[in-house]
């Protein structure tokens, strides 16, 4: 069974078992910003959607562990473009990646992505919404 199907199945079960909650602009203190974990693995799915982009990673945090599925949350597409140099296609399903993230405090397999590095090219992208606090960001981009 493909992992995308597995994700779909997992999500369907969740939808069936819990009540719907909306989402929008929320605080992020459910993530433990004092911790930074690194996961190495492959991208299973990218959800490039408002108001928060998400990437599913199948990977390991400690060498020797068996790979598990993790969910990485980010800010909106517009902010990722401005703050981190992203476009919709820079990270794709199948890409080998290394991801630095702050984990959820409740111990489930989720985190706030800080930096994603593509293993094949060494290119990396960040997701710090506060990295866009100057005028004319393109001048910074050109440096």
């Amino acid at each position, binding site marked *: 069974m493909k992992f995308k199907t597995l*994700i*779909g199945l*997992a*999500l369907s079960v*969740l*939808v069936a078992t*819990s009540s*719907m*909650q*909306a*989402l*929008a*602009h*929320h*605080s*992020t*203190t*459910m993530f*433990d910003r004092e911790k930074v974990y690194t996961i190495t693995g492959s991208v299973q799915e990218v*959800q490039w*959607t*408002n*108001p*928060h982009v*998400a990437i*599913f990673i199948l990977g390991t945090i400690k060498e020797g562990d068996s790979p*598990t*599925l*993790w*969910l990485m*949350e980010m*800010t*909106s*597409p*517009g*902010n990722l*473009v*401005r703050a981190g140099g992203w476009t919709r296609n820079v990270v794709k399903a199948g890409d080998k990646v290394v991801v630095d993230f702050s984990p*959820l*405090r409740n111990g*489930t*397999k*989720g985190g706030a992505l800080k930096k994603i590095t593509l293993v094949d090219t060494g290119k990396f992208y960040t997701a710090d*919404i*506060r990295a*866009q*606090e*100057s*005028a*004319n*960001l*393109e001048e910074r*981009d050109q440096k």
Partner: protein
Amino acid sequence: MNRKLLFLAVALVVGVTGSNLVYAQSKKPIINPPPTAKDWANLAKLPDWSGVWNPKITDQDKQAKTNMPPWIPAANEMIQFQLAEEKAGRPPPLFVNCLPEAMPSWMLITHNAMEILFTPGRVTMLGESDGNRLRRIYTDGRPHPEDPDPTFHGHSIGKWEGDTLVIDTIGILPQSLIAISEAAGVPNNGDMRVIERIHLVGKDELHDEIEVIAPKVLTKPWKTTRIFFRQRAQKYDIVEGVCLEGYFAPGKDKQGNDIFVPIQHDVGGNRIPPK
């Protein structure tokens, strides 16, 4: 008798015509006149606010600690509880229902960019990442309606004092929050007025000096300034941002059609991570 009849007839005609006149006066529609070439030309005299404006979030963070609104005791109790919850890693879910952040919170705690359009008699503010962010500020000299229907962004009238746009906003829904962060804020509970002075500072920084008058939750008016940075590169143009899109992920139905598949989120607005 004939004279009496004639008098009655005249009185009737005068009366009906007169009441029609009164009726016509009270119901005379107020027209938004078509803009003239001069109206369009006059826009060129206004300061240049073109481009995309993104907020200084670190200053919002700072002011949440250094510039607390003068809450009444009940509101302060609510804020202190929310701050403690957030610190404990349980941020209260204030803006997670996809309703507009509304006034004045859009200006106070937004993390997203906006653009500002000038047309004759009006300034329009459009926000990214929430399909419902839109402020219409009438600069054509009209007054507020006597009893406006409350809305998320209220009724705004503006006037230019030199290069500063002074905006007066009333008619805001009582449920609209006065927020100091995404996780701390209280409903204004009605009768709120927001006065803003928006102007450039330097070439590419826009300041919104905000005064919030909310007698139901503040002991006195609260003042704060919020800062926005200008971007001109096309790659930073505002993009569509439909909040409700986050309810769904792209998927396929049995026939292979592209559809939106509902997905689950926790109370804090995050997708549920794998077990």
